[in-house]
């Protein structure tokens, strides 16, 4: 388990990370989301004591800098292509392995795991972003850690690579391990994560299961179609629901559940031709929650 308490970081007058407190539980994949410049990478660096700032993070009760062989406890991927261009991929991993007394045979295992065994003895200067990312993942997995901390792990991966990563992380977490992964690919995150931590301008905006995050969105609504839409609308509004007519006798409403609408229609003898839930996408929920929290806002659009 990861416990982050009161994380804070200031760059000049700007608070990049502002009193962040959260826990990352084992057994599930936790997604770490936020708009560009929200402070995700800074938060991860603070957690690892790579950046100096406020607060403390404990990995299974220990600060990162106090862990004797940290790669055996926490696997870290912070940026793709963090390697010397002329040191072979295998030597890069051997070097990291030597820092935590990890046997060399594990180097070959992880190279095979991420699909880089054919280029293991090649210099990585010609590696694509995706290959660099795979090498970074191999480094994170070297010590067979119980905790993974991954910043944009899907960045640059091809569709097969993304599918592999998603399946791998789900199985990894299901084995009782802790996974915190940031991503800006929301559709991917929706498939991969079970729990979400969302930040904006360095502040915690949401910390909940992904299903709850999506359900709370105003874009999640009950859709009902009736030949007596006007009367149904009045009845629902009187009971506190917010109703938006969509034409063709269809109403979209929030503030009442599917069951409540069905029971009301039955009691008031209003015929229904359709009664469904429209679930928001993660993207809709994310944009709603982070509205006003973007560090870099666009001002124009395509005509």
């Amino acid at each position, binding site marked *: 388990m990861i416990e982050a308490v009161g994380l804070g970081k200031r760059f000049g007058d700007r608070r990049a990370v502002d009193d962040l407190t959260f826990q990352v539980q084992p057994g599930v994949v936790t997604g770490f989301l936020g708009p560009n410049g929200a402070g995700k990478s800074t938060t991860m660096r603070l957690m690892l004591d790579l950046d100096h700032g406020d607060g403390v993070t404990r990995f299974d009760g220990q600060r990162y800098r106090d862990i004797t062989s940290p790669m055996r406890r926490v696997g870290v991927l912070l940026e793709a292509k963090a390697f010397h261009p002329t040191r072979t991929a295998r030597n890069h991993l051997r070097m990291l392995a*030597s820092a935590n007394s990890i046997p060399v045979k594990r180097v070959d295992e992880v190279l095979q795991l991420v699909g880089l065994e054919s280029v293991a003895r090649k210099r990585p200067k010609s590696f694509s972003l995706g290959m660099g990312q795979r090498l970074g993942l191999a480094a994170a997995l070297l010590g067979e850690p119980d905790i993974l901390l991954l910043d944009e792990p899907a960045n640059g991966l091809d569709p097969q690579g993304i599918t592999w990563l998603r399946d791998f992380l789900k199985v990894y977490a299901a084995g009782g391990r802790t996974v915190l992964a940031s991503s800006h690919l929301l559709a991917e995150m929706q498939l991969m994560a079970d729990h979400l931590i969302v930040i904006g301008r360095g502040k915690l905006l949401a910390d909940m299961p992904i299903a709850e995050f999506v359900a709370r969105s105003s874009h999640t609504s009950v859709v009902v179609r009736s030949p007596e839409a006007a009367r149904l609308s009045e009845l629902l509004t009187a009971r506190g629901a917010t109703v938006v007519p969509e034409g063709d006798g269809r109403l979209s409403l929030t503030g009442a559940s599917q069951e409540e609408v069905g029971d009301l229609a039955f009691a008031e003898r209003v015929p229904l031709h359709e009664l469904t839930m429209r679930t928001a996408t993660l993207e809709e929920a994310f944009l709603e929650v982070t509205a006003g929290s973007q560090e870099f806002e666009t001002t124009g659009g395509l005509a």
Partner: protein
Amino acid sequence: MKNALRYEWMRLRTLRSTWWLTGLSLLVGGLLGLGALGPKGPLSVQDYGDVLTGGGGAAILLVSILLSMIGVFAIGHEYRYGTIRPTLSALPRRSNVLAAKVIVVAAYVLAVALICVVLRYLVAVLIVGHRLLDVGLFPSSMARVWIGAIVYPVIFTLVGLALAGLFRNIPAAIVTVIVLPLIVENILRGLLGLHVFHAIRGFAKVLPFFAGSQILRYGPPGSSGNNASGGAAPSPIDGLLIFIAFLVIVLGLSWVLFEKRDA
């Protein structure tokens, strides 16, 4: 600490630049200037000094500059290629990382500098034969020059390492480590030699690279082996201590910043 040393040794030997800089240092350090050895007549202590240092320390200075690149790369590459974060993720105790870099780089450069000077001596013996042996193994002050030829490149290299840590930038560290001893100090010594600066002339004695090079001094004033420039130079041991003090200051500053800065 053992893990940090293992990591650093692995880092150093898996870099191509380490090997070509070593090869070049052996080539330059082992051979430069030996062609000028006279074919006839007995050799003097002065000739012996020229053999060891390439004449006034020129070969040792060149070897030092080449080997200092290894020191610059030890920290410079970490920032140039973004490996500082994986390094500190694997070894979160920053002091251990820096200490391992200093120890491994110093030990490696010490070994290469030793091989260089032994190689020079052996090549010179091959060229002039018994005439060099006749002078004795360590005549006069030559034991000191031997030690200087090994120690000077080590301190020089660690200054390069410390500068790379200060600047976190390879070109800036390389330029500084070359320009400071070859240009800046020479200009300052020239200026301080002028009558108008008579009162602060002694300052020339503490120019670190120049002071450090006094450990390689041999021969009478005015000879190729005497770079004391008319007395405005510290003694060889004082000079070495000044050079070491300079290293301690730069490395200490670099160490403090390495601990304080974000990775």
